[in-house]
């Protein structure tokens, strides 16, 4: 891969990250309202308390100095202390990353695989009954709010049918392999919700990308030289149509993360979303701030990964 391409993309990601950090800093310090007031919205404070807190958080220093301190904290992964639990924010977050990773990871992979397959089948036989039905189905699932979809699935599969637990991460009573089964049992409905929530979008993207590809000259050439239809599809059309789809799926990561927050709340799944929800209700600003920083950093990392993989897969991009 061209070194220039790599360096350019890396610098771009770093610049974006810096922008996010600066935004996070500005938002909580320069916005209307005093940070101390924001930090302790529900408490009554004497002027002495305020001065003490300001000194503790370094808020008595000029803004540029505060920003430098803040950068130092961010670089050393010091996210401060949760106002409600008194625990370091980094500890709280590291406990919650794993469940969210499971949910978002499995859900995204399933949605991608099935969405892409549906998109290929529909797009290749455009106007067929399968195409029409899958297109309407995709539009329908695209239009359903994820949280509400989760609630519907809960009513049907956990309530009426009683097939799955109504929420949580595990029952906490199992060990060994049975514990894995237990977690999988709890994971099923949230993952199903996430998958259904994004499968339609991915199918539509793949379908239209394939429709763009079908009119390319190299497809006509392949057909003209007698390549069998299924090979035209597998070797010529799909790989080229998959490239833009791949990038868009990577780019939608931030959206999926947002959907996961609601799904976690509905299923009491103890991940970052649940943590965010609790932090909103308890006005725990250091936690909200840290989650914003972390998720933005994740999204930036994903974009970088998408850019680099894309450059690796498509020579035209890295030499552009």
């Amino acid at each position, binding site marked *: 891969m061209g070194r220039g391409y790599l360096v350019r993309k890396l610098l*771009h990601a770093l*610049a*974006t990250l810096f*922008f*996010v950090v600066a935004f*996070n800093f500005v*938002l*909580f310090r320069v*916005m209307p*309202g005093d940070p101390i007031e*924001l930090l302790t919205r529900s408490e009554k404070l004497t002027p002495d308390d305020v001065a003490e807190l300001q000194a503790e958080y370094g808020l008595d220093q000029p803004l540029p100095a505060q920003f430098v301190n803040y950068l130092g904290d961010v670089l050393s992964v010091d996210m401060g202390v949760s106002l409600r639990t008194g625990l370091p924010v980094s500890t709280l977050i590291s406990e919650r990353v794993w469940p969210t990773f499971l949910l978002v990871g499995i859900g995204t992979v399933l949605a991608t695989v099935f969405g892409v397959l549906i998109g290929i089948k529909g797009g290749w036989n455009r106007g067929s009954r399968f195409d029409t039905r899958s297109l309407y189905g995709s*539009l*329908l699932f*695209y*239009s*359903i*709010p*994820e*949280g*509400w979809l989760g*609630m*519907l699935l*809960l*009513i049907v599969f956990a*309530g009426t049918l009683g097939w799955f637990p*109504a929420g949580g991460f595990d029952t906490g009573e199992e060990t060994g392999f049975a514990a894995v089964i237990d977690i999988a049992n709890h994971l099923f409905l949230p993952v199903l919700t996430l998958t259904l929530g994004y499968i339609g979008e991915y199918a539509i993207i793949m379908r*239209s990308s394939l*429709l763009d590809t079908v009119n390319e000259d190299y497809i006509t050439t392949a057909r003209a030289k007698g390549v069998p239809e299924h090979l035209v599809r597998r070797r010529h059309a799909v790989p080229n149509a998959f490239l833009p789809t791949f990038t868009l799926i990577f*780019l939608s*990561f*931030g*959206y999926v*993360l*947002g*959907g996961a*927050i*609601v799904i976690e*709340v*509905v299923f009491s799944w103890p991940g970052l979303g649940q943590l*965010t*929800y609790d932090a*909103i*209700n308890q*006005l725990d*600003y250091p936690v*909200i*701030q840290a*989650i*914003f920083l972390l*998720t*933005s950093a*994740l*999204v*930036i990392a994903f*974009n970088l990964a998408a850019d680099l993989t894309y450059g690796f897969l498509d020579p035209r991009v890295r030499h552009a």
Partner: protein
Amino acid sequence: MPEPEQDLVVPPSARAVVWARRRRTAAAHWTTFRRNRQGIVGLVVLSVFGLIAIFAPLLVDETQLEPATASAPPLHPPSLQYPLGTDNFGRPVLGLIVMGSRISLMVGLTATFGAIVIGAFVGITAGYFGGRWIDSVLSAITNWVLVLPWVVLAIVLSSVLGRSVLNIVVVIAITSWASTARVVRSQVLSVRERAYVERSRALGAGHWHLVSRHILPNVMPIVFANAVLTVALVILAETTLSILGLGDPQAVSWGVIIEESFSAGALTAGWWWWLIPPGVAIVFVTLSFTMVGYALDEVLNPRLRRR
């Protein structure tokens, strides 16, 4: 033999020519749109919801929707008198949904308007005035907002701003303008180079004239199709934020109804009539906006017409 002179009519004014052309284009677009079944179905559904929203105060007795004056028994299952049952305050769910259509559609339309205005402004500035710095900085910001975990950003913003309908609109507008900005920028880049724009510039037209007479009219159709698609996303966003408890409890939108039934325990208690209908309303409206948006995209964006 040429006709004698008296048959010549007075030449129409420039304005009349422009309006005649616009009427013709609109008629042609309508003919194309009418052939799109999805688009028409969506348009009909949206008109029904629009009428319901406009005439909502005539359709429901608002005193029944105040927790203090609601007279129906609480949590009553659907019956002839209360077709969708009642909530925990004894408010009829059907009435809540009818009145809620005003809030949901209002938030959807105003937040979209805000997003479109920001997006068009950023897109035109980046594309038209371009230049190395303005364009790259604006594009970087646009790309950042586009991929950002918008729910988290919205949470951060609304926890700083506080909970009200206006803040929901502001927050959603701030997090939804980026795709419009991108579409507009690329359209502006291509329009800017066209011969008639060049001609106009050569004749001494200023920035304002070029942007308002040549760039904007060419960008508007795509912005419009984009806006209709954005409304669907905005309504979904409002639902998400409401379910997370960031909605305005004073302005009962469909999302707020879902949240209220969820936190009252409708899932475990089986009060399905309170939880399901607002979601169905959201799906109908979002799906319709999406279908109309796609149909418009096909009409206004000739490149797509073959699909």
